[in-house]
Every structure is written in structure tokens, then in C-alpha cells.
């Protein structure tokens, strides 16, 4: 379902409204020292406004819109450096569950994800082709289900997730698998991995012969790999949308500073060295914006043209954000290098966004592989 221009404008202003009221950048800084690192109350408010049900089809009780609306939320969260599991739960995990041919068990989870009463997360393999990595957990057939062993590194907000979607290698001749693990029911061990970006929490989850009932299998074989392919693209898009929002905010901070900071008797923004730097950053920003916007409008993870556009948009926005944040520090000079200033927080989120889910290089390399496997002159 696609919103009308008018509905979309209303949606955007409701997003702005809630976040302006309840998610200041300063607040995010304070949350870094709390246990889970995000604002539960804000999460509930977001759920009440239906944000957690954006990707859920109408027939399952969701809002049933698409990436264009998800982009609006992710961008706004990125702009304000809002911490929390929106991306991992409402976008990545929910998207994957909807993609899967879901059993009744899974559908009941979708209800709870949609109304925000449960949180899920998605663990993507670090190496995108299943079956290559020894880091990746292995599933062995067991009576009534599977025994899962091994570790899943770098899972976003696993500490608060009720459900973890995990890709696993089948032992022996068994095929690749995707599970939706009820965290309370599955024995596991969890280690936190504190990031330079304090607005993001991440854990490594370990299993040792943990029993997973058969009905929590989301997909097998080709279907599992297809789920992974789409989840990987959606993750790239989501990180890019967050990056775009952050880039916009940190660029605006630099512009504002250049207008007010006076050196040599003039605002520093009147010097071409600064003015042209800010203009180049703007080109980087606007090009990311247009590309992410078009990819969101296409909302298509399957056709080759749309995939090329999505990868390109995501790569460009993920690469632009660290450049823009670094240049913003330069424009701010010394003050931009202090802990109290927010510039470094954007810089760090920019680097984490780019590195998440095996990093932006995978997108560039996929474009290269496509270009060079094409027949000569095609």
C-alpha cells in the first residue's frame, strides 16, 4: 500500500512531532549510561503511532506501507542519533518474518512485534554466502527439531530481543536454515560488545547444543538463501537511511557554526575554504538523499535494476556519512573535537553504519561482480 502525498506529509510531521518532543540529541547522550541504552517510553510511543507495524501487511493487522515510510522514520532517528531497536526489530526482523512463509507460531510473534510488545532482532551472517564461515552456527537434526551450536557475532540489541532470527548451516548433508529463536526458551550465552557509537548496543550470542523446535524453522535451502538475500538488501537500505539522516543533521550543524563563528573579523563561512567544503558536503548529502529516496520509492528487492539502484544508493550514503561527519569536525575546529560536542557522535555512528552487516564494501563488490560477469559489450 502506498500513501498519498498528503498522507505522507502527515506521517512525516507526526514522526517529527514525536521525536522533537521526546528524543533530543542530548537525551541520547544520557541514555548511553542506562542498562539497555534506549528509552522504553519512547519505544512504546512509537509503537502506539504504528511505526513498528509499518512493514506488517494489513491482513496481519499492520499498517502495510513500505520502505518509503520506513525511510522517513529511520532518517529521523538518524538525524537525532536516537538509540533503540527500531531498525533491528521493526525493519530487519519484521521484514524477514514477513518474507518467510510463516507458520502460525511466527504470525503470533508478528502481532507482538507490530504492537511493540515484543522486540526482535536479525543476525546476518558476516560472510554473505552461507556455509563458508566457521563462525556461523551449525544446526544438527534432533528429535522434534534441531540442536544449535556455535556463535552469532555482532547482533544488534540482542540483549532486549525476545526473538532472534538466526541463519544457520545444516550439519552434514543438511541444507542451510533460518530459525526464529524464542530467546527465553532457547539456552544461550550472551557477551556485550561495546561500540564507539554509544547509541548502538550489540551482543555476541553463543549456543551449545541448544534445542530449537521444528516449528521455529523459517526457511530451508533455497528459501533460506532467498530470505538472506532480501534481508541483506533491506539491511543495507536501513543503514543507509539512518546515515542519510545523520549526514543531514551534522552538515546542518557545520553550516550553522560557519555562519556564527568569527575569525579574522568575518564569519568563517564567508571564506571559500569553508564555503566550498560545505558545498561539497552538500553535494554528497543531496546525492545520497536523491538516491535513497528513489530506492525507497521503487521498494523492490527483486528486479535487477532496482537492486543495482538500491546497492548504489546504500553504498553512496554509507560512504558519504563518514566523509561529511569528518569534514564537519574540520569545519568546527577544536570545539568539534571535544567529547561534549556532538560531531564525534555522528562520526562514530557513521563508521558503525558503514561497518554493520559485513560492511559497505559488499555492496560495491556485488555491483562489480555483476558488471564483470556480464558478456562483453552487453
Amino acid at each position: 500500500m502506498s500513501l498519498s502525498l498528503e498522507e505522507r506529509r502527515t506521517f512525516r510531521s507526526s514522526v517529527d512531532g514525536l521525536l522533537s518532543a521526546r528524543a533530543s540529541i542530548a537525551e541520547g547522550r544520557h541514555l548511553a549510561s542506562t542498562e539497555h541504552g534506549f528509552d522504553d517510553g519512547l519505544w512504546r510511543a512509537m509503537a502506539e503511532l504504528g511505526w513498528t507495524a509499518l512493514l506488517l501487511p494489513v491482513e496481519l493487522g499492520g499498517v502495510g506501507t513500505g520502505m518509503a515510510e520506513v525511510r522517513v522514520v529511520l532518517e529521523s532517528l538518524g538525524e537525532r542519533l536516537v538509540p533503540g531497536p527500531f531498525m533491528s526489530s521493526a525493519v530487519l526482523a519484521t521484514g524477514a518474518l514477513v518474507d518467510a512463509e510463516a507458520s502460525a507460531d511466527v504470525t503470533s510473534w508478528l502481532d507482538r512485534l507490530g504492537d511493540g510488545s515484543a522486540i526482535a532482532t536479525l543476525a546476518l551472517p558476516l560472510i554473505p554466502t552461507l556455509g563458508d564461515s566457521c563462525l556461523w552456527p551449525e544446526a544438527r537434526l534432533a528429535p522434534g527439531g534441531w540442536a544449535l551450536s556455535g556463535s552469532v557475532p555482532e547482533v544488534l540489541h540482542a540483549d532486549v530481543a525476545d526473538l532472534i532470527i538466526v541463519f544457520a548451516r545444516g550439519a552434514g548433508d543438511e541444507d542451510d536454515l533460518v530459525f526464529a529463536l524464542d530467546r527465553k526458551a532457547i539456552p544461550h550465552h550472551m557477551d556485550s560488545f561495546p561500540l564507539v557509537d554509544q547509541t548502538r548496543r550489540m551482543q555476541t550470542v553463543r549456543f551449545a547444543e541448544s534445542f530449537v523446535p521444528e516449528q521455529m524453522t523459517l526457511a530451508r535451502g533455497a528459501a533460506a538463501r532467498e530470505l538472506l538475500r532480501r534481508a541483506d538488501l533491506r539491511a543495507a537500505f536501513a543503514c543507509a537511511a539512518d546515515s542519510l539522516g545523520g549526514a543531514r543533521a551534522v552538515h546542518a550543524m557545520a553550516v550553522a557554526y560557519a555562519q556564527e563563528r568569527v575569525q579574522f573579523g568575518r564569519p568563517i563561512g564567508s571564506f571559500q575554504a569553508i564555503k566550498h567544503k560545505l558545498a561539497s558536503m552538500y553535494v554528497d548529502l543531496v546525492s545520497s538523499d536523491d538516491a535513497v529516496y528513489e530506492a525507497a520509492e521503487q521498494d523492490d528487492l527483486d528486479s535487477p535494476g532496482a537492486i543495482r539502484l538500491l546497492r548504489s544508493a546504500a553504498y553512496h550514503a554509507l560512504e558519504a556519512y563518514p566523509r561529511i561527519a569528518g569534514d564537519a569536525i574540520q569545519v568546527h575546529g577544536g570545539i568539534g573535537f571535544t567529547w561534549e560536542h556532538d560531531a564525534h557522535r555522528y562520526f562514530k555512528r557513521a563508521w558503525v553504519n558503514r561497518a554493520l552487516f559485513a560492511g559497505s564494501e559488499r555492496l560495491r563488490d556485488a555491483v562489480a561482480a555483476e558488471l564483470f560477469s556480464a558478456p562483453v559489450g552487453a
Partner: protein
Amino acid sequence: MAVVRDTTDAYRERVHGWLLSNRPEGWREQLKTASQDEVVSFYRDWTRKLHAAGLLVPHWPARFGGEDRGLAEQVIIQQELSRTQSPRPRTMAIALGHAAATLMNHGSPAQQRLIAGILDGDVWCQGFSEPQAGSDLASLRTSALPRGDVYVVNGQKTWSSFAAHAAFCLLLARTDLGAPKHKGLSFFVMDMSLPGVTVRPIRQATGSSEFAEIFLDDVEIPVAWRLGQEGDGWRTAQTTLSSERVIQLVELVEGLREAVCTMAGEAQVQRTHGGQPWAQSERFRTDVARIAIDVEVLSAMTHRAMGNLIAGESLGAAASTLKLFFSELLQRATQIAARMSGLGGLHDPGEPPDLGYTSGDWFSDHLRSWTWTIAAGSDEIQRNIIGERVLGLPREVASQ
């Protein structure tokens, strides 16, 4: 946006089919050894042929020879010209773009009659830059002083594309010598066959002579050929300029898309110093992938800008942003391709005709990319525009 995306596939198929049957075979090779006269004449014929098939300007109003279709169709035509490797009438760019748009928007009925000539292949040129007014375009000195029912024009214009072949010139000249900077300028249609007009081709760094100087010596332009109000020339010239640039970019993006495929193809054959095909170099493959990625991004940028144009919104700084992004990308893409070609790619092409910005003679293309970073507002000027008009940064003290 919806307008662009919902255009029927049927239209695309019709365009595609017609081009496959009608594109001149081997035209690229043929033009490489052609004289400039032959190139101009080739593109004139092709323009007429496209127009006869309704594939030149379907987005124009019917009363001017179009079909009242949207810009979306024009985008499709550009894409299909690229996909079928058909020629695009380069020499007609000003005529079909800035000249036609200006005539439609600001022309008198008599002036608008020149549009028919454009559809018949008349070449137009622009008379903007002068030797002393490059980046500082508002400091033009060419004068057009009223005397009776004519303006008497004296001065010198430079960097005018295909001026040697042009029937008409869009001329910017100073009608009020006392008014400051761009306040005293007026805009004219100048018949290039008027007495006192002398054209001297400029040989460029690439060896081509696409550009020319125009010397104006007591040229008498009838008052009736002034476009818009006296003293309002700057605004009149600018009105349609940025939209036309964006439309032009649609074609250029498609050219870049082709170029990426050509590079990938050549990389299977061209060898590195190590003796391997370039296609086996990860560094090269990923460099080309980054070009391909940026082409997608640029395509999204032009697509969104076209959407805004179609929706009747103003472009704002989009023209500057697009030009900067494009010129930087073109320079980088052609550099990578030229490096792949090695010493073999540094073969002297002599005095080649200008076959566009991605002609496949990569070193010449690379050198030619400086026309994009310099002309029509250098990169430095574009950054000033963005910094001051979009970001609201203070102007430099000296220029206030």
C-alpha cells in the same frame, strides 16, 4: 514522479523498435573520419528523421511541433537512443534546448516562427562568454546600443559551440553601459548571416574545433529580435537555462551508463603491465563499480529533478548540484578508462570531430571533461552558488 514511472511500456517499445530499424549503421566509425561540415550535416538529417517519426520533441506543445506529451517520454527516448546505440544530435543541443525553450517562454510570435527551422535542423549557438568575462559572466562588455529601430552591436564572444555552423545566436549584450553588472544586459536572437558577424573557430586542447569566437563589428540587430524587455536580459537568459541543463543531463547520464559497459568490455581485452586483462584486477573492477554506482546515483538525481520539473516545481540549486556531481564523475570515469588504455590510448587523434563526452577515445574524453569543470559556471562558481544561495553562507566581503 508517478508520471515518469507510469508511462506505458508500449511507448518505450515503439521507440525501441523504430530506432532498431532506422538508426544509421556504423555511424560512429563513419563520423570519426568526417569533417565538421559532414558531422553537422549528418546530425541535421538525423534530427529531421527523428522529428518525422515523432521522436525528437514529443514533450513540446503541439502548436510548436510537439505532441503535448510529458518530459517522461523525452526521458524514454534518451534511454532508448542510448540502449540502441543510436546517434544523438549533439550539434542541435542549444537549438532544441535553450533556444527553443527561450523562444517558447519569451519570444514574440514572429520570433517563435524560428522554432520550425529548429525542427528542420537549424543549428543555434550561444553568445555568452567573453575573453574578459569567464567566471564573472555579469561583467560582459559587448555592447548593443539602440539606434533607430536597430541595436548596433560591437564586441567579442568566445567559447560558442558550433558557432561556425549556426544560423542563429542567443546573444547577451549590454544595452545600458551605465547600469551595474547584470542590470544593463539585454538578450537577443542574432541572425548569424548579418553583416559584421565574423566567426573564428577555436582549436581546443583535444585538437577539435567545436568552439568558436564570434567577432561583432557594428552588427545591426533589429529591435524586433530582442528577447524580453530591455535591461532584463540576464533574467530572460537564465529562466529556462537550468531546466534545459537538467534535461541535457538525462542524455549525458545515459552516455555514462554506456561508457561503463564499454569499459567493462574493453577490460576483458586490454592488459595491465603484469600481462593480465584489466578485468582480472580487483582494483580496476572496484573502481569501475564505483563509477557504475555513481552513475546510478546521478540517474536518481536527474530522475528526481525531472520529477520536480514535471510537477512544476522550481529546480533551486539542483542544477548546480547536478553539474558538480556530473563533471566530477565524468572526469574520474574517463581518467580510469584512459589509464586502462595505457600508452596505446595516448595515440594522437589529430583533429578529430567532437563525438561527445564519452566517445571511447578515453584520453581525449578525459581532457574534454575540463570543458565541464570550467564552462557554463566553473566548479568553483557552482560551489559559491550552493554555499551562498542554498546554505545561506555570507558572501565574500569583496563581492558585496
